[in-house]
C-alpha cells in the first residue's frame, strides 16, 4: 500500500467546554447528574454532559409547549427566515462542526466535512423554503402543525439526524425537544448555540442530553404530540407499543439489512466502489448500509478478487487524518457487538477475510471484513451488524436475487448493479425497500425521501414527503 504522510485536520478550530448543561427555553441549565462523552478514537474524555432527568424533560416539554403558541402563529415566511439563518450559520461554522463530529463520533473527517455537514446545511435550506408554502405540499389546503415534537436520534450521523428531525418540524410550525444519542451529544449542544446565534425564540428548540431512560421519558411524555425516532428496530417496537392508544403521531426510521445486488453485466469497477461505499462508509454504522452483497454466481470470483484488492487500499485510523477512509467504531459496546456477530459468522461456517491493516492501540477499531460462503440462515445474513462487515451470498437468476433480497424483516434500502435498464427497473419494482440505489449507493439529498418498508419503520424523512410527519 502507498505510504501517505499524516495529514491531520487541526483540532484548534473547535473549543469544547469541560461541561455542558441542558438547553431548555433558550438557556443552558446544569443537570443534576452528568455523564462523560469520549473520543472513540483515543478514549480521551471530551466533556461532561448533563444526564436529563424526568423533571428536566418536563421542563423542556413545558418550554416547547409555551413556545408553540407563538411559533406556530408566526407567518411561515418568518419561520423560514430563522431556518435560513440557521442554515447559513451551519455553513459558516461547518469546519468547526465537522471536526467536532469526527472527535465525538469517530467518523473520518473526509466524511464529516464532505458529506455530513454539507447535507446538514442543505437540509435546513430545503425545509426553510417549505415554511411559507405548506398549503402547496399536497397535504390539504390548510395544514396545521401538530404541537410539541419529541425526537430521539442515533449516534451514527448525529448532526445530520438532528437536521432531518428539526428542520421539517420547525418549518411546519412545531416546536421540539430533541435527545441526542448518549455517545454523541456534542454537536446537538453546539447546535443549541447556533439557535441562540440565530436568535431563535426560546423554547422552540430544546436539547436534553441523556441515555435511554431520558429518551423514554420524552417519548412517553403526555404533553408530546408527535414522536420521531431513529434507531434500532427493537427500541422502535417498544416506542410503538408505548405510543399505542395515546393518539400521538409516530414516525420510525429503524434498522436495515440491505441487499446490494450485482448482476453479471454490471460495470465491475463501479460496482466494487459502490460495494465499498455501501458497507465501509461511516464504518458501516449506517442503517441503510449494503451489508448483504448478492452477486451473480458467474462473476462472483472475479468480483471478490477486485473487492479484496480495493479493500486492501482502505486506510483505517485517525478520524482527523484527511487520508482516512475508515475511522473508529463509535463505542466499546458497539465494538463488542460487531466482534460477537463476526465470531458467530465464523462459528456458523462462513469464511472471514480482512485486508492486512494495523489498528491503533487505543480507541475502538475494527478492520474492514467480508464473509464469503454465507447462507440465508446465517445470523450474519439476517441480523444488522452495524459495522464494517459484509456478508457475501450468490444467486443465479434475477428471481432468486429478488427473493433473497426480500427475505428479511427489514426493508430500508437496496442496491442494483447492471447495465441493462429494463432489468434495473423491473428489479427495483420488486424490491421491498424504501430507497433503491441503482448503479450507485448511499446517496442522500434533502429533497429525496428516506425511510423503510416492513420492520425498518414507517414515515419518510426528506423531500415533500418528509413534511407529512409534522402536519395535521
Amino acid at each position, binding site marked *: 500500500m502507498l505510504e501517505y504522510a499524516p495529514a491531520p485536520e487541526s483540532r484548534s478550530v473547535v473549543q469544547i467546554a469541560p461541561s455542558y448543561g441542558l438547553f431548555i427555553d433558550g438557556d443552558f441549565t446544569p443537570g443534576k447528574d452528568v455523564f462523560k462523552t469520549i473520543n472513540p478514537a483515543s478514549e480521551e474524555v471530551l466533556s461532561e454532559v448533563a444526564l436529563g432527568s424526568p423533571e428536566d424533560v418536563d421542563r423542556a416539554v413545558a418550554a416547547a409547549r409555551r413556545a408553540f403558541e407563538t411559533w406556530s402563529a408566526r407567518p411561515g415566511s418568518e419561520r423560514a427566515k430563522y431556518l435560513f439563518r440557521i442554515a447559513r450559520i451551519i455553513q459558516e461554522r461547518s469546519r468547526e462542526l465537522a471536526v467536532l463530529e469526527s472527535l465525538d463520533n469517530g467518523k473520518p473527517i473526509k466524511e464529516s466535512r464532505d458529506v455530513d455537514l454539507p447535507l446538514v446545511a*442543505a437540509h435546513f435550506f430545503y425545509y426553510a423554503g417549505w415554511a411559507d408554502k405548506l398549503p402547496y405540499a*399536497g397535504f*390539504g389546503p390548510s395544514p396545521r402543525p401538530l404541537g410539541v415534537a419529541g425526537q430521539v436520534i442515533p449516534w451514527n450521523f448525529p448532526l445530520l439526524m438532528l437536521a432531518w428531525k428539526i428542520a421539517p418540524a420547525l418549518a411546519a410550525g412545531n416546536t421540539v425537544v430533541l435527545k441526542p444519542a448518549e455517545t454523541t451529544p456534542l454537536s446537538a449542544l453546539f447546535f443549541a448555540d447556533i439557535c441562540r446565534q440565530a436568535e431563535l425564540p426560546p423554547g422552540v428548540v430544546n436539547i436534553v442530553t441523556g441515555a435511554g431512560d431520558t429518551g423514554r421519558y420524552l417519548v412517553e411524555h403526555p404533553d408530546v404530540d408527535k414522536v420521531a425516532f431513529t434507531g434500532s*428496530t427493537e427500541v*422502535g*417496537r*417498544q416506542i*410503538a*407499543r408505548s405510543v*399505542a*392508544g395515546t*393518539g400521538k403521531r409516530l414516525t*420510525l426510521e*429503524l434498522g436495515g439489512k440491505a441487499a446490494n445486488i450485482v448482476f453479471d453485466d454490471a460495470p465491475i469497477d463501479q460496482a466494487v466502489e459502490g460495494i465499498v461505499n455501501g458497507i465501509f462508509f461511516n464504518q458501516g454504522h449506517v442503517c441503510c448500509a449494503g451489508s448483504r452483497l448478492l452477486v451473480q454466481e458467474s462473476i462472483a470470483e472475479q468480483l471478490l478478487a477486485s473487492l479484496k484488492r480495493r479493500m486492501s487500499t482502505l486506510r483505517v485510523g485517525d478520524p482527523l487524518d484527511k487520508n482516512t477512509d475508515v475511522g473508529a467504531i463509535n463505542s466499546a459496546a458497539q465494538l463488542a457487538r460487531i466482534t460477537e456477530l463476526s465470531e458467530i459468522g465464523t462459528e456458523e461456517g462462513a469464511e472471514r477475510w480482512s485486508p492486512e491493516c494495523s489498528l491503533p492501540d487505543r480507541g475502538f477499531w475494527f478492520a474492514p471484513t467480508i464473509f464469503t460462503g454465507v447462507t440465508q440462515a446465517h445470523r450474519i445474513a439476517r441480523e444488522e451488524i452495524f459495522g464494517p462487515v459484509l456478508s457475501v451470498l450468490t444467486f443465479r437468476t434475477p428471481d432468486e436475487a429478488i427473493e433473497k433480497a426480500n427475505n428479511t*424483516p427489514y426493508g430500508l434500502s437496496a442496491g442494483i448493479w447492471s447495465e441493462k435498464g429494463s432489468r*434495473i427497473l423491473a428489479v*427495483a419494482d420488486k424490491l421491498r*425497500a*424504501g*430507497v*433503491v*440505489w*441503482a*448503479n*450507485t449507493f448511499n*446517496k442522500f*439529498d434533502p*429533497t*429525496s*425521501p*428516506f*425511510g423503510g*418498508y*416492513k*420492520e425498518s*419503520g*414507517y414515515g*419518510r424523512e426528506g*423531500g*415533500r*414527503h418528509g413534511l407529512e410527519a409534522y402536519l395535521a
Partner: protein
Amino acid sequence: MPKSSAPRLSVRKTFKLYIGGAFPRSESGRTYLVDGDNVALASRKDARDAVVAARKAQPKWAAATAYNRGQVVYRVAEMVEARRSEFKALGTAGDEVNAAIDRLVWYAGWSDKIAQVAGNANPVSGPFFNLSSPEPTGVVGVIAPPSLLGLVSVVAPVIVTGNTVVVVSGGPQVAVTLAEVLATSDVPGGVVNILTGHAAEIAPWLASHDDVNGLDLTGVDDPALAVELEQAAAGTLKRVRRAGTTDFTADPGLAPMTAFLETKTVWHPKGF
C-alpha cells in the same frame, strides 16, 4: 308435481365466510344468530387462512395495471347497483346504497391517479434520476364498521392501490352480501377476504400476525380493544390507521389510501 295447499316454504340464506374467493363455513363449525340469521362465526384459524389467501393474491393484484384495478373496482360499483334491493332488504337506506356506490366509483378513479398525487420527482443536487412512487403495503387487516357505506369506505381505498385485505365485519349480513357482490364482480379471489364474527376474538390474531403489514381500526368501537390491537401491531411494526371518524358521508381525503402505501425512492446516475 302434485299440488299442495300449504304455503311455499322459503329457502333461507346461510351467511358464510369469504376466503380466497370461496364461501366456506368456519373451520370451527361455529355459527351465531344475528337478527334471526345463522352466520358463520369465524375463528383464529379462519383468520390465518384468510391471511394466507390474501398474501397469495397480493403480488398479482399489485402487479395488475392501475387501469385494470380501477376497472375492477368500478365493476364492483356496477354490481352493488344491480343488487341494491338486497342491501335495502337488509335495512340499508337507499341514500346509503347510493353513497356506497358513488364512493366505489370515486375510488375506482383513484387507481391510476394516486401515484401522480402521492409520488414525485426529486430535484437532487447531482446528476441523478430520482423518483418517489407509492407502492402497496401488502396485506392489511381491516376491522370494518357495520354499515355498507362504512365497509366500502374502508375496503375500497386499501385494495384500489394494490393491497389485499382481511376484513373483520361487525355487520355480517351486509358484509357477506358485499362478498357475494365481489364474487360476481371481477375481483380476483383472495383480494378481499371477509370474516364474520367478533372483532374482540379475531382481530388480536390479525394484529399480531407476522404476515400482516397493516391494520385499520376504523370499525373498532371499544377503546380498550383499539389500544390492545395497536400494541399488538407494534410487534411487527404494522402500519396502523386508528379508529377515527364515523361520518362516512364526508370527503374521505387521501388518508385512507396513503395510510397503506409505502414510498419507494429510486436513484440512478445520469451520464453518457
